[in-house]
């Protein structure tokens, strides 16, 4: 079973893998449970037995995606959905709580997050502390689950989630280009954004191929840009907007802005919800219909 356990500091929670009943006590659920655990299902594809996984609203879309791509079979996975009221920015927690403390009780209300440790109760105003991706979240309740652990939270209307994309779209092309050049030039090509992404499931990734060498290992603006554009196109229509790539990037490249631009274009073109929202609705770029206008053929 894949869930969350306390990490090495009060502000961190880690993916936990448990296989015995007496380990259940290690598991926690609190507003710091940020990692999308669905990606780990891939590691258990060929292992015997079933695997249970804890998912929040955003992560649950990744499960649908993996099922739709036949990456994992439905019988193999037990989905433990947790309706998620939103997560807290871990940096704020780290700044106020003693790193060695343990959170014993966590509560989230309309106004604030409250975390209790041995040293007392700490509250954080929700407006300031809520993660940006949670602010834009439509589906706090997982879209698929075998067991729903908690009361369902009604769908949310976050307003327009594409404000930042539109602001960028309006800039003259030179400025847009300069903006991305500045971002891509500091990419380390550590590939954390790929390794964490539930839309990245290729057995051999194009960026690991030496023959032919699609993108050179050389770290420079041109190769880095090629890497980012190829990756963005490869996850187009399959990115479930879980925000993990954004979170893990060590040099804060705003990957959500890039992936959301494509998400927005696909929504505009095909009038579909975010990929992974429904098991029946296939990703627009991964499905075939006879009514396809084939404009470019």
């Amino acid at each position: 079973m894949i869930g969350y356990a306390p990490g090495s500091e009060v502000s961190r929670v880690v993916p936990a893998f448990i296989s015995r009943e007496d380990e259940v006590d290690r598991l926690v659920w609190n507003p710091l449970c940020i990692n999308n655990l669905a990606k780990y299902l891939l590691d258990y594809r060929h292992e015997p037995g079933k695997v249970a996984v804890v998912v929040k609203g955003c992560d649950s879309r990744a499960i649908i995606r993996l099922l739709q791509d036949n990456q994992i079979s439905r019988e193999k996975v037990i989905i433990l959905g947790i309706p998620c009221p939103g997560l807290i920015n871990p940096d704020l927690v780290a700044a106020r709580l003693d790193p060695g403390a343990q959170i014993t009780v966590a509560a989230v209300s309309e106004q604030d997050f409250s975390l209790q440790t041995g040293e007392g109760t700490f509250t954080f105003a929700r407006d300031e502390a809520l993660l940006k991706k949670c602010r834009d979240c439509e589906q706090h309740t997982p879209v698929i689950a075998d067991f729903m652990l908690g009361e369902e939270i009604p769908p949310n209307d976050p307003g327009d989630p594409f404000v930042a994309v539109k602001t960028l779209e309006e800039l003259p092309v030179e400025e847009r280009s300069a903006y991305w050049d500045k971002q891509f030039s500091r990419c380390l090509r550590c590939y954390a954004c790929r390794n964490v992404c539930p839309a990245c499931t290729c057995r051999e990734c194009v960026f690991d191929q030496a023959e032919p060498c699609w993108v050179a290992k050389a770290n420079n603006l041109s190769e880095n840009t090629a890497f980012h554009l190829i990756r963005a196109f490869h996850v187009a229509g399959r990115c479930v907007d879980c925000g993990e790539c954004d979170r893990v990037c060590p040099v804060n490249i705003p990957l959500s802005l890039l992936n959301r631009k494509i998400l927005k274009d696909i929504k505009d073109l095909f009038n579909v919800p975010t990929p992974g929202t429904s098991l029946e609705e296939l990703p627009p770029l991964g499905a075939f219909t006879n009514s396809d206008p084939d404009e470019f053929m």
Partner: protein
Amino acid sequence: MEAYTISRDNLRTWLDTLARDYTLIAPVREEETVSLFKPVRGFAEINLGYTNSTVSPKGWLFPQTEEMFFFSTSDGQITLADAQTPGPAVLFGLRPCDIKGILALDPVFNGAYQDCYYQKRRQDTILVGLSCTRVERHCFCTSMGGGPTDGEGADLLLTEMDDGYGIEVLTPRGEELVNRYQQYFDADRENRVIPAREELGKKLARQFTRNVDTTGVKEFLDQHFELPYWGELARRCLGCGICTYICPTCHCFDIFDQSPDGESGVRSRCWDSCMFSHFTRMAGGHNPRPTQKERVRNRFLHKLKYHRDRYNLDGCVGCGRCVTRCPVNIDIRQIIADLQEVARHD
């Protein structure tokens, strides 16, 4: 050796001058939480208020991508041409842990095997250290034999004081640099600089949130290669390269050629990571580190055992970067503590 003081105004002018006379590499604030070492044109671009940079400054001495030589072929002959090497440089504002990181790289590139690329850059680069002014929650340099005001390895060490900066000259090369710009410095006649740094060191020593004890860890690892613990860590490791790319002591690289026409081109080397699945994959497909378990084990054995075996130096300087940035909280401080625990039960 000698100590001097420099006023804030003079520091500004000195750095502007250094940027004209040398390639000046200094910490720059790129984004709200990202600072990087980059070539700068003057003081205005530098941010001295950082604690440690997001990526370590090792990239100046060992660039992420470095051209080694150019080649061209004609009439069955091959012609080689040297790649350009940068000239004299000043690496300014290095935190003590990063200077120690350079000391950990030296025997790798400048020991039994002489690496001409690293050696050239190292010889041409003056290292100017800067004592820390605060300790971040991931810092644990004192546990790894360093300290936030420890200048070992630098040519000059700057320490912020109330009315400017103190400068300690630590090597003849540092002395030359100070002599060249005498006009900006005042001799430390009242001997204020060293006491000020020691005072700051004591104050900062109290700010560390977590200390680790490495005693016995290497000896335990000498005896135990197989541990179920590595498998447990590996389950959550994503196999990304963040921890190795941002680390001041990691130094693996890969060599590759680029030749668009197949006749001429460039041979370069670039950072590689033992955390990548294809890092040890050989021609024919065999991989001696077939799963993430072997890779995670390799990384920590390198930090805590192999580097010591080879060079009698820790492979970790306690900068805490990998602790901050690992997306799944694989925390070397915790690993050291866990290994102590496992050793106790052995």
